[in-house]
C-alpha cells in the first residue's frame, strides 16, 4: 500500500513534528510566531519564472521554479509548494498546492483581460517561506498553434487525396474497386429463394438514418431489390425506426420501377415494428420462424441482438449474408452466417453497388491514407529496429524525424 512518496511525506510530517516539539513545548503558537523564532528555516524556492503559455487562447500561464534546496528525498521538511497569484496587483490568492519535488505548474485560470504576478512558497507543517514575486504578465492569445504543424500537414495530405479522387471520379475517371466476397453471393442467394419459392428477409440494423451504417445498408438494399424485382421473388423488411421505414419504401419502390415492375411493389414489404431493441428482436424472431425465409440479409448497425437474429436465421436453414462495422458483433455473424462483410467492407460494398463517383472516389482516397499508414509503419519499424540494434546514424536520424512527425 505504501509507496516511496507516501513515506517521504509522512517522514516529513514526523520530522517537522519532532522539530516543533523539540523547540516549542509551550502553548501553540501562531504561524507568524513560528517563523519569527530563530529556527533554522528552510530555503525558499527560487528563480520563479512566469511565461505566457504558447499556442493557446490566452487562458494559461506557465510557471516554473527551482525547488528549495531543502527539498530532500529523505526526511523532507517540505510538505507542499503553495502558489499565490495576484491579478492586477490585488491581494494574492492561493491558487494551488503541489507536492514536494514539483517545479512546474500551468495556471489556466487566467484571461487576456488582466495582468498577473506570482509567488511560490515552500511550506513545512509549521511555516512557509515565500519566493520573490514575479513581474506582472498578461497572457497572450495566439493565432496559430505551431506545435501542430505536422498534424496539419498530414490532415491536408489525406484530405487532399480524398478530395482529388472524388473530383476525378466525378469527371468520369473509372475507379477500380475489388470484388467483395459477400456481394458475389447476392445473386445466387436471391436465385435460391426464387427456386424454393420462399421469401427474402432484409434487416437494416436497429439504428436510425443518422448512422452511416444504416445509410450504407439502404444503398445495398437498392441493388438487391433490383435483382429481387427481376427474379420476381418476395421480400419483407421489418424495421426499428420510422424514418428508416420511409426511406426503405422509397428505395424499394425506385428499384422496382428501374426493373420495370412497378406493379409488383407494395408498401407492405417494409414494416415498422418498434424502437425498443428487444421488442423488435422478439418480433423479428417470430417472423423468421413463421415465414421461413430462404435468404436473410443482416446489413447495418447491430448491437446485442446480432447473435439472436443470426442464430435464429441459422436454425431455420436460411442463407445469411451479414455485415456490420461494430467489431463486438462481428464474431456472431462470422460464426452463424454464410458471408460477412467486415467493418469497412460494408461501406465499400455500398460504394461499389451504388456506383456513385463521390462514394467510389472517397473510398479510393481512404486507400491512399492506408497506403501512407503502411508505408510509415514499415519505414518506422525498419528505422527503429536498425537503430536499436546497430546504432547507425542515418537510421537514428530517420527515427528522430519520424517521431517528430508523429508527435
Amino acid at each position, binding site marked *: 500500500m505504501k509507496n516511496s512518496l507516501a513515506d517521504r511525506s509522512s517522514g516529513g510530517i514526523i520530522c517537522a513534528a519532532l522539530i516543533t516539539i523539540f523547540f516549542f513545548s509551550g502553548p501553540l503558537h501562531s504561524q507568524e510566531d513560528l517563523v519569527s523564532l530563530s529556527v533554522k528555516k528552510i530555503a525558499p524556492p527560487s528563480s520563479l519564472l512566469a511565461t505566457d503559455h504558447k499556442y493557446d487562447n490566452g487562458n494559461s500561464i506557465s510557471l516554473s521554479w527551482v525547488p528549495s534546496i531543502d527539498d530532500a528525498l529523505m526526511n523532507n521538511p517540505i510538505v507542499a509548494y503553495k502558489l499565490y497569484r495576484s491579478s492586477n496587483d490585488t491581494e494574492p490568492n492561493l491558487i494551488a498546492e503541489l507536492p514536494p519535488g514539483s517545479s512546474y505548474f500551468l495556471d489556466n485560470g487566467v484571461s487576456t483581460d488582466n495582468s498577473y504576478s506570482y509567488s511560490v512558497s515552500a511550506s513545512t507543517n509549521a511555516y512557509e517561506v515565500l519566493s520573490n514575486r514575479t513581474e506582472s504578465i498578461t497572457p497572450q492569445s495566439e493565432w496559430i498553434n505551431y506545435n501542430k504543424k505536422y498534424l496539419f500537414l498530414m490532415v491536408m495530405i489525406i484530405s487532399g487525396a480524398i478530395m482529388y479522387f472524388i473530383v476525378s471520379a466525378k469527371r468520369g475517371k473509372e475507379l477500380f474497386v475489388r470484388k467483395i466476397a459477400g456481394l458475389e453471393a447476392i445473386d445466387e442467394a436471391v436465385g435460391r429463394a426464387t427456386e424454393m419459392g420462399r421469401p427474402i428477409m432484409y434487416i437494416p440494423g436497429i439504428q436510425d438514418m443518422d448512422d452511416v451504417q444504416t445509410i450504407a445498408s439502404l444503398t445495398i438494399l437498392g441493388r438487391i431489390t433490383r435483382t429481387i424485382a427481376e427474379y420476381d421473388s418476395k421480400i419483407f423488411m421489418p424495421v426499428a425506426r420510422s424514418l428508416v421505414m420511409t426511406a426503405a419504401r422509397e428505395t424499394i419502390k425506385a428499384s422496382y420501377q428501374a426493373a420495370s415492375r412497378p406493379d409488383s411493389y407494395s408498401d407492405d414489404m417494409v414494416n415498422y415494428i418498434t424502437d425498443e431493441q428487444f421488442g423488435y428482436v422478439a418480433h423479428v424472431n417470430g417472423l423468421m420462424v413463421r415465414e421461413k425465409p430462404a435468404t436473410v440479409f443482416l446489413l447495418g448497425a447491430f448491437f446485442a441482438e446480432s447473435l439472436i437474429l443470426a442464430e435464429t436465421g441459422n436454425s431455420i436453414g436460411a442463407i445469411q449474408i451479414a455485415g456490420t462495422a461494430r467489431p463486438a458483433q*462481428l*464474431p456472431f455473424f*462470422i460464426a452463424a452466417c454464410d458471408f460477412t462483410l467486415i467493418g469497412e467492407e460494408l461501406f465499400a460494398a455500398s460504394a461499389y453497388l451504388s456506383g456513385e463517383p463521390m462514394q467510389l472516389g472517397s473510398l479510393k482516397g481512404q486507400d491512399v491514407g*492506408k497506403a501512407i*499508414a503502411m508505408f*510509415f509503419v514499415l519505414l518506422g519499424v525498419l528505422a527503429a529496429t536498425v537503430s536499436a540494434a546497430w546504432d547507425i546514424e542515418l537510421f537514428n536520424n530517420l527515427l528522430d524525424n519520424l517521431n517528430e512527425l508523429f508527435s
Partner: protein
Amino acid sequence: MSLILARKEKRSSMDIGMFFAALLTLGIFSFLYKDNPVYKVCEAIFVGVSAGFWAITYFFDNIHKKFWLGVFPQEGDSPDYWLWGGAILGFLMLLRISNKIGWIARWPLSFIVGATAGLYMMLYFVSNALNQVADTMMPIVAYASDNSVLWLDTFGNFIVVLGVVTGLIYFFFSKEHKGLFGTGAQVGTWFLMITFGASFGYTVMSRMSLLIGRLDFLFGDWLGLF
C-alpha cells in the same frame, strides 16, 4: 493452483421494493420460456419508465441546472446569454413532432452533424490513426536491460506489425487481392479472425456476468439463500 475456502456473509432484506424488483426480474425472464403477456407488460413498463427516467434526469441536470440557472442565475452571478442559442436550437428540434414545420428541425440536426463531423475528423485521425501508426513504428527486436534478446516479446512485436500491415491490406479496396498482395490480405483475415475470437470470448464473459448479477440478486438479495 487450488481452490481456497472463503467466507461469505449472509444477507437478506425483504422490503416491498425488493419484492417488486424480483417480480419484474422473473417477469422478464419468463420470455425465455416463451413470449407471453407478463413479459409484454414488463416490457411496456420498461419502455415507459426508462423514457421517463431519461427525460427527468436530462431536465434537471441540463435544462434546469445548466440552461435555466445559467441565464437566470440565483445570486450575484452574471447571466450567460450565449446559452439562449442552445435553447433556441433545442426548441427547433422539438418542432420535428409537427408534420408541417418539421423540416425546421434540420437546423439543429445540421448543427449537431456538422459539429460531430468537425470534432470526429480530428479526434479519430489523431487517436485512432496517427497515434496507432506511431506506436506500431517500434523496434521489432526487444532487448532486456542486459542487452539479451527477449524472444517472446520480439515475436509479439513482429505479430503486431504483421497484423497491422496485413489487416490494412485486407481493407484495401482499389487493388485486386492477387499474388503477394492477395497472400497479405489472406494473412490479414487470420488476424481479424483472432481479433473477433477474442471479442467473442470477452462477450461471453460479459453476458455471463450480467446473468450472475441477476441470479445473485434473486437468490442473495431477495431470498437471502446465501
